[in-house]
C-alpha cells in the first residue's frame, strides 16, 4: 500500500457490507475477497466514494437486509445508487471490480462457480443502470484485498503473495 500517514484511517468493509465515505482521511478496505466480488466506486466531482463487498449473485426475491445491504449484487447496486442520491449522474461514477476467484481449488470451484456467477451478476447490474467498469481484476485462484483511498480516489488490489498495485 501507499505510505500510511497518521491522518488516514482504514475501515474494513466486511462480507455483504456497503460503505460510503467523503472524508479524505479514510481508506475503505475489503479484506480477503475469495468468491466474493468487491466494487470500488468513485465520484470525482464530489470526491465521494463507496466500497461494496458482494457475497452472492442474486436475491431471487429475498427481502433487502439493512444489516447486509451488499449481500446480493442486485440489492447492492440499488442501495449504492440510493446512497449516491443527487450528487450527480450514475454514469459519472468510476467503478472497479476485483475478486470472484476460485480459492478452494478449480475442481470444487467449478462445481459451485460462485465467483464467476457473482461477476456475471454484477455485469448485469452495470447494464441495468447504464454503468461500465473502468478496470477489473476478476477470476483466477488467489484471494484479493481491495482498497479505495478516498483522499485520491485510487483503488489498489493485492493478494497473499503479490504486493499492492493500483488498477
Amino acid at each position, binding site marked *: 500500500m501507499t505510505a500510511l500517514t497518521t491522518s488516514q484511517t482504514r475501515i*474494513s468493509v*466486511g*462480507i455483504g457490507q456497503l460503505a460510503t465515505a467523503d472524508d479524505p482521511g479514510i481508506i475503505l478496505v475489503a*479484506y*480477503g*475477497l*475469495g*468468491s*466474493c466480488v468487491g466494487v470500488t466506486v468513485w465520484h470525482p466531482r464530489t470526491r465521494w466514494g463507496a466500497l461494496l463487498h458482494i*457475497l*452472492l449473485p442474486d436475491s431471487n426475491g429475498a427481502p433487502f437486509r439493512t444489516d447486509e445491504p451488499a449481500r446480493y449484487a442486485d440489492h447492492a447496486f440499488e442501495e449504492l445508487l440510493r446512497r449516491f442520491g443527487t450528487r450527480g449522474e450514475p454514469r459519472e461514477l468510476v467503478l472497479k471490480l476485483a475478486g470472484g*476467484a476460485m*480459492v*478452494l*481449488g478449480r*475442481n*470444487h*470451484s467449478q*462445481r*459451485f462457480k*460462485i*465467483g464467476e456467477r*457473482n461477476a456475471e451478476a454484477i455485469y448485469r447490474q452495470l447494464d441495468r443502470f447504464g454503468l461500465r467498469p473502468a478496470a477489473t481484476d476478476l477470476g483466477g485462484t*488467489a*484471494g*484479493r*484485498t481491495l482498497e479505495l483511498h478516498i483522499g485520491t480516489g485510487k483503488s489498489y488490489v493485492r*493478494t*497473499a503473495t503479490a504486493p499492492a498495485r493500483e488498477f
Partner: protein
Amino acid sequence: MSVPMTQRLTEIANDGAFRAGRGLSGLIGEEILIRIPEVRLGTRLDVCAAVGGDDALVLGAYLGVSGDVSGHVMLLFPEARALECVDLMCGQPPGTTTEADDFAQSAIAELGNIVGSAFVNALADATNLSLHPSPPVVVRDLAMALVESVYAEVMAQDGPVVIIDTVFEDTRGETAGLLILAPDPPALARLEELAA
C-alpha cells in the same frame, strides 16, 4: 443452538480426533495425539479471528463433502503453525521446515486428508448418514478469502459453522490448528434431530 447439540458435536469431534490420531500415528510410525480443547459454533468473523485476523495468511487443506447431505471441511493453520505440523509429521525438530514448498504442501494435503476424513467418518457414523469426503485441496491464501468462499455456499442460507480447536501433540511438543466443519443447513437440521 441447544446445549445437547454442542455436546453431541463435542462427542463426534472427540471420536474424529481419536480416529485421526490413530491414522496419523499409523502413517508416521510414531504416537501422535490429537486433542480437542473446544468445539463451538461460530461465525466467519470468529474463524478469521482464530487464525490471526482478516489479513492473515493461512495454509491448510479443504475437502468437500457429498452424499446424503453436503458440507465443507477445512483444516487451517497460520502458516508458521502448518510448517511446524510438517516437522511433526516428518519427525523433525520444530523449525526445520521454513517454507511452504511442494513437499510441505503435500504433507499438509495428507494431513488434511487423514484428519478431515476422520471427522467426516465420525460424523457419518454418529448421524447414520452416508458422507463422502473429496480428495484434499491444499489451500494457501488469505484466511478471509477461504472462509468467505465456503460461506458463499453455506451462508447463503445463514447457517453457523462448527469450529473445532485442534491440537496436534507428539513427544517433542505440540502445535495448534483449526478444523472447520460447515454442514449445509439440511445436515445441521439432521444433527439437531439426533441431538434432541
